[in-house]
Structure formats: structure tokens, C-alpha cells
């Protein structure tokens, strides 16, 4: 069931992308193959694969290696994605440390940590990783609202 749905989505996507790719034309070209041919070739192959997924008998998907989804897990996955999106949004305006503290707490809660352990984990991870990466390993991270504190 899901396999076919996925096949359908893949087919639609490859057709739509092919339509976009059709207009790719080099204004002047020194070579016989333009920018269009190679992506189109691949999209055709992906499309054929999608058709195969649509038509294939569904028996093979019965023994998938991953455990089946239930509502509980699905809700957690959605929560995790939401936390990641919020983190990405806050990363620059709020700065690495505050955003990571919030995100760390949320993630620890999602993985069944108690409130107290989550608070500790989030704070320690955020500050520790900031010191490690920004100060020791020289990976510049945004300071955000804490930029006033930098000496």
C-alpha cells in the first residue's frame, strides 16, 4: 500500500521535474551535450523505477526490516521534527547556546528523560559543546542574544 503511494509520489515528482528541466538550455554552448540531457536521462530512469514500484505485486513489502509504525511513535517523530525546525529557526537569531539549551531539553524529554535530567542534559550539552567547538576546535558559532557578553 505505502509502496504504491510512494511510487506514485515519485512518478509525479519525476514528471514535474522533467517539465522544469525541459527548459534548461545553454545560451551558447561549446559542447554537444547541454545541461538538459543528463538530468532528463536520470528522471526517466527514476520514473521507470516508480512505475515498477506501482505495478509490483505487494507481497515483497510484507517482510520489511523496520518495525511497523504506531500512533505513539508517529506523534514522537512529529514532535522531533518540530523541535528540529524550531531549532533551525532560532539557531541564528537567538544564538547557539540559548537555542541549544531549549532544543537539548526538548530532545531529552522526547527520549524519555525526566524533567530534571533533561534540564541538566540540555544545559550541559549546549554550553559544553559551545566551548568545545567554538573555543577549542575553532568552529565559529553564532552568539545571538549573548553577543553582548563576548569580550
Amino acid at each position, binding site marked *: 500500500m*505505502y*509502496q504504491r503511494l*510512494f511510487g506514485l509520489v*515519485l512518478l509525479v515528482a519525476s514528471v514535474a*521535474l522533467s517539465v*522544469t*528541466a525541459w527548459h*534548461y538550455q*545553454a*545560451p551558447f554552448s*561549446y*559542447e*554537444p*551535450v*547541454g*545541461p538538459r540531457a*543528463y*538530468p532528463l536521462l*536520470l*528522471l526517466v530512469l*527514476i520514473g521507470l*523505477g516508480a512505475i*515498477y514500484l506501482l505495478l*509490483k505485486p505487494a507481497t515483497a513489502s510484507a517482510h*520489511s*526490516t*523496520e*518495525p511497523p*509504525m504506531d500512533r505513539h*511513535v508517529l506523534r*514522537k*517523530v512529529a514532535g*522531533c*521534527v518540530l523541535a*528540529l525546525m524550531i*531549532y*533551525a*529557526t532560532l*539557531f*541564528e537569531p537567538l544564538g547557539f547556546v540559548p537555542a541549544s539549551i531549549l*532544543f*537539548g531539553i526538548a*530532545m*531529552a*524529554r522526547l*527520549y*524519555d528523560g525526566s524533567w530534571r*535530567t*533533561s534540564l541538566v*542534559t540540555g544545559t550541559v*550539552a*549546549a554550553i559544553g*559543546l559551545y566551548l568545545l*567547538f567554538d573555543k577549542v*576546535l*575553532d*568552529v*565559529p*558559532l*553564532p552568539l545571538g542574544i549573548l553577543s553582548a557578553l563576548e569580550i
Partner: protein
Amino acid sequence: METLSYLGQGFGVALSPYNIFTALCGTLIGTVVGLLPGLGPINGVALLIPIAFALGLPPESALILLAAVYLGCEYGGRISSILLNIPGEASAVMTTLDGYPLARQGKAGIALSISAWSSFVGGLMATCGVVIFAPLLAKWAVAFGPAEYFVLMVFAIVCLAGMAGNKPMKTAIAACIGLFLSCVGIDSNSGVYRFTFGSLGLADGIQFVVLVLGLFSVSEILVLLERSHHGQKAIEAKGRMLFNLKEGAQVLATNLRSGAVGFGLGILPGAGATLASAVAYMSEKRLAVKDNKFGEGDLRGLAAPETANSASACGSMVPMLTLGVPGSGTTAVMLGALTLYNITPGPLLFQNQPEIVWGLIASLFVANLMLIVMNVPMIKIFTKILAVPYWALVPAIAIITSIGVYAIHATAFDLYLMIGIGIAGYILRKMDFPLSAILLGFILGGLMEQNLRRALSISNGDLGILFASPITWGVWSLVALMIVLPIWRTWRKRSQQKAQLANA
């Protein structure tokens, strides 16, 4: 003789104090990363790339670091397989079959030490193989033109699908998706913006670190959510920590055979450690006629996959270094790292920058030696790390992943892209698509297009150039073989099933 002098030069690079320290850090980090659930060699190596860059490591040190992490991961993966019955990554699945029963019989210490020894033997054999075969292949590969390269990459993709076992079609689709993703961004030949949809963030393409961390780290974080409520307790490693001579002698033949198998399969593009460990285990099981206890804690059943595993990890360096065509997901990431340094792996690397190639090969020896020396006494510490709960581990992994992605361009756009790719990866994983095929396709995609277009420029658009030289004929026939093989295999399986039904 020439090889030996180059190797000596390589040891000169690898044994400089700076690089020894790098290798030591790499092996330690690698073992821990391989040990942790949810982090395999691919994410481990990918996470370190931005760091290696930020630290300003010279290319040969960066490569040594990444190779050491790779080997360390293959070592570390077995610890959770043996003590927890949870394989850290796909290639360690076979290790659980006999490793976990051994641990439950109270022989965890012996199992850990014999598997460390097996990894060492496998790695050593394969590194010797690299020393012998890589220069030969490089010499031969100089004759490759763009057409030959294109055909070779077609072979790599087809091989990936043909070797994938039960799901060749899905692997092929995944590889094509990866190939397609490499088209996103400005086309370097004509300057046309392809599939960017007006977004500036996509203009120079999808950064491969973003792709790797999205596909492997973010999707793994989502997958771990399912397992968080049923935790498992590790078996304590106690009793004799070292195997004795008799046990060592018992597995020596297995070690040698599996090492050869692993190296051979490691060289094949796309086959990698997962297949190597499975093949080695199965063939040893078939060979063991006398007191066959495979599956209930046979030392040979533990030694075979572990030897093959690390042998193929070293073996997969051969196609990466000599042809620039990666043999596994992890070497694909290393190839990406090399291109960040503006180094194009391939036969010319052996001529132009021998210190990088031979430094890397020599450091494989060094890293292997470090791992065996480190692993036996430090096993107690490593098993402690296994007890870290997910709620402490996963937030840290997620934050480190985000730092790794942010560090490339310092834009939040890459973070969104990573999350998007991660969700897609999670869905694909649920659908049973192999993610490493996407990665391999992505790395090969750009090279493949460049070579195809170059070849057709030479021939002025005539497709005949792809079938013009003896090398291309040879590779095309291998491609045909690889396409026929899975079809033949399913056909045989089906006819066997029919025969069984007829008998029953």
C-alpha cells in the same frame, strides 16, 4: 622495489608525531562512534569533515584522521553487537549471530578479544593487499579516458544494485535519486541554474555533508525514537579477557580465508562490508564440518564476519584511491572530503601527490596496530559508554550534527535542508530503500556527468565513443553480468520454491 620506497616515504608521513596523534584521536573517536547506537562510520566521518577543515589540518592528516575513524568504527561496532545483541550498523549484523551467544555463556571477554584480533588480521591482510594492488591498478588506470570512466561508474552503480541481494530494484532507484540530486545547482559547463527554484542556498548545489548528515544522522535520530522505550541491558564482560593460543589457532584458518574474501569484495565498487561479512560467515558455516556450533556461539562464526568486515573496509580504499570511484558509503564520504581539499583522487594522485596516498596507506597499518593495542585493555571503559542512556546521548548527537552542517556555510538554510533530507531519508528507510546507495549515487553523479559530457565533446556527440575501446567492452560486459546476476538469482530462488512446493 619502487613500491617499498614509496611505502617507506608513507611511513615517514604517518609516523610524524603530529600524524600519530591524529591517528590516535581518530581511532579513539571512531571506536566510540562505532560503539554508540545510531552513529556509524558514515556519520562519524561526515561529522569530522567540518572539524578537520576548521582545525586547518593539512590534507594528508585529514585523510589519516578519517581513515582512522573508519577503521575504529568497524572495531567499535562489534562491541554493541556482542554485548547488547544490537548491531551498531548493517555490517555488524553477522557478528551478533555468534557473538551474543558467546557473551551469554560468560565468554564475553574472549569474544571481544578474538573479534579484535580478527579485525586486526583482516585489516592487516587487506592493507598488504592495498600496497600490492593499488599501484598496479593506478598504473593501469592512467589509460582511462572520460568514456572509460563513465562506463566504469555505470558499472559501479549497477554493481551496487546487483550486489544488494534482496532488493536490487530499490537500490537502483535509490542510486538514481542520488545521481539526480548531484545535478542540483549551477551547471559548471554552461552556467545554467538547475533545479534551484530561485533559491540562493541551492545555487552551488547540495553540500554533501548536509546530505550525509541529513540522510544518516537525522533519520537515525528519528528511528531511535522507536526504540527508546524498550531499552536493553548490556551483558557485563568479566572472566578471562584474552583468548588463549588454542582458541587463536582454531580461528586462524577462518581469519585468513575471510580476510581474502573481505578484501576481494571490498575492492568491488558498491559491495562493501555488509556483503563481505555475510558471505564470509555463510561460507565458513558451510566449510565447518567438524563440531559445527554456528549460531550458538562458535568462535569461528565470530571471527569470520569480523575479519571480512575490516578487510573490506581497507579494501574499499583501493578503488577510491586509484580510480576515484568509492567502494562503500564511507569511502564515498572520504572522497567528498578530498574534493573539499581540491584533490581529485584517481591514478594521477599516485604520481603527483604520493605523500598523501602512501601516508594514508601507511597510516592504515598504524591505525590497525593502535586499535588492537588499545582495544584489549580499554574494553572496560568502552563498555561503560554503552550504558549512556538515549536521553543524554541523542540531544548531544543532534546538536553536534547541527554544528557540523552550520559550520560549512554558516547559513540556517543548510539546517532546514538537512532536516528536509532527514525526513525524506526516514521515509525512504521505512520503505526499505538503502540510503547508502543514495549517497554513493550523489558522490558519483557529478563525476559521471562531467565524464560523459567530456567524452561526448571529444567524439562530437557520437555515442559510439562509449563503446570504442577494449576497456569499455570489458566493463560493459561486466555491467551486463551484474544485470543478469540478480535476475538469475531470483529466477533460481523461484524455481527452488516451486520444486519445494512440488515435493511437499
